[in-house]
């Protein structure tokens, strides 16, 4: 497939993931390292539905989103009970658990070999078979996600989340339920991650556990840190810049095995450098 199509489609899918991570980590202050697991659940659900002719793409996307809403609420509930630092450990455990399930539940997920041959997405029964059509679909999904994020953040809900990030006690004293707002943010983040999974599975037509492991979760954090926390433009900028990196590495003549390691290394170094020297990212606010 043409490089540009692939780049734009993947970047727009990761924008949805960036919005999800931004809502949860940047805005609600729930420091989760398990968003890739939720993303994976969305992808596997859609793959299963389409490969077994259970339903068409849009209803499957809906199911993935709803399941991931529920899952994200469940996963982040401990965050509302244990303090921030402890939750990182909890969500780390959740991520490892999810990866173990993805790898070992071969009947459902194809195990380490993954699921090949996922049918392309369709719209109202009309299959989108060309790369250009799928790219447009991914861009539309991204556009809708950005619109929703923008609407939510400019509404009183967005202001409430910003206030919660600053001072939960003061928000409670203002008569607002901190718990309710955080659960809502987690739910919305789940919907974004699940939808991203739907686009990802159908765009690549192949998924395996590697796409949804701890490295992937850390990549999602890197997207938000580099792009910029809590802003829409940061959530768009991060994925488009960082996903260009593997392509840039292919221009340099190094073996592919080294390139993969180099990419992880560069993501890690970027994460550290940005946290140290530019915590607000390229276009965001301080994390």
């Amino acid at each position: 497939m043409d490089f540009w199509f692939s780049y734009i489609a993947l970047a727009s899918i990761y924008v949805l993931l960036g919005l999800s991570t931004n809502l949860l980590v940047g805005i609600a202050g729930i420091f989760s390292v398990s968003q890739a697991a939720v993303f994976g659940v969305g992808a596997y659900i859609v793959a299963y539905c389409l490969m077994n002719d259970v339903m068409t793409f849009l209803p499957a996307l809906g199911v993935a989103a709803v399941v991931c809403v529920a899952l994200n609420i469940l996963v982040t509930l401990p965050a509302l009970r244990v303090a921030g630092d402890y939750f990182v450990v909890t969500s780390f455990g959740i991520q490892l658990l999810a990866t173990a399930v993805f790898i070992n539940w071969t009947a459902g997920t194809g195990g380490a070999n993954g699921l090949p041959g996922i049918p392309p997405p369709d719209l109202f029964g009309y299959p989108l078979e060309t790369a250009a059509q799928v790219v447009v679909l991914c861009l539309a999904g991204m556009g809708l996600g950005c619109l929703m994020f923008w609407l939510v953040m400019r509404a009183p809900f967005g202001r409430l989340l910003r206030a919660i990030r600053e001072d939960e006690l003061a928000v409670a004293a203002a008569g607002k339920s901190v718990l309710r707002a955080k659960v809502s943010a987690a739910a919305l983040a789940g919907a974004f991650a699940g939808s991203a999974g739907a686009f990802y599975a159908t765009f690549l037509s192949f998924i395996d556990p590697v796409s949804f492991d701890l490295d992937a979760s850390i990549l999602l954090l890197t997207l938000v840190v580099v792009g910029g926390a809590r802003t829409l433009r940061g959530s768009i900028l991060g994925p488009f810049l960082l996903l260009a990196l593997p392509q840039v590495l292919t221009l340099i003549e190094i073996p592919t095995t080294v390139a993969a390691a180099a990419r992880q290394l560069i993501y890690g170094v970027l994460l550290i450098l940005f946290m140290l020297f530019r915590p607000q990212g390229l276009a965001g606010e301080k994390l």
Partner: protein
Amino acid sequence: MSAPYLQAEGVEVSFGGLRALQDCSFTIDPKRITCLVGPNGAGKTTIFNVITGFLKPNAGTVHFKGQSLDGWSPQQVVAAGIARTFQNLRLFVELPAIDNVMTSLPQQSGEEPLAAIFRPLHVARAGRRRRDEAMAILQEVGLADRADEMVRNLSYGEQKLLIIARVLATGAELLLLDEPASGLSAGALDKVMTLLRRLQSEGKTLLVVEHNTRVVQQIADDVLFLHQGHLMARGTPQQIISDPALAEIYFGGAL
């Protein structure tokens, strides 16, 4: 005889071995300014925490207009009409002044993500009305021209006024103010005292923790003197301040 406006009865709070409140009982009357005084550690802020649902007492009850607040969450207490400020302000410093006020307005359309996404026009229209409400409150405390300023850029005196604006926005009728006048210059102090008097004349009831005896004398209708976690005396500002035994506790340290 109708129930007291606010009544604390036998409230006990212990933190480990420390008894912050013991058998603390008092009432306050509506539409008056009651000052809560006493040396450091007397339990003034603790009783605020109990009344507003932030702290569950080990024993005792608080009734508001005849209704027990036992087991109520801070949100329920605010909805019932009681709101509080904090001694260390706890403003949202990275938000503009007006957003601090708007956060406290009750029942806003668009406080749920679904409404924000599916009824954006309604939310935007309602938001403009709520902004006008918040502006009116800022006007009342004299900060209308600072509405869009980030809180961290406001002077300390302005922040103290903003914290009162934020508590007013909840619509509560009983305001619990924790040291609203501390650390202020003479000019700012006058502004705050005038504001508190005006709020009272508009029908609010104020329970105010205050250390400054000049402020207490000028604004208080009633004074409650708290010592070692219980009510030691109650009277007019003159009665309390002129009592040599209380002055000894207050200024002389331990009994």
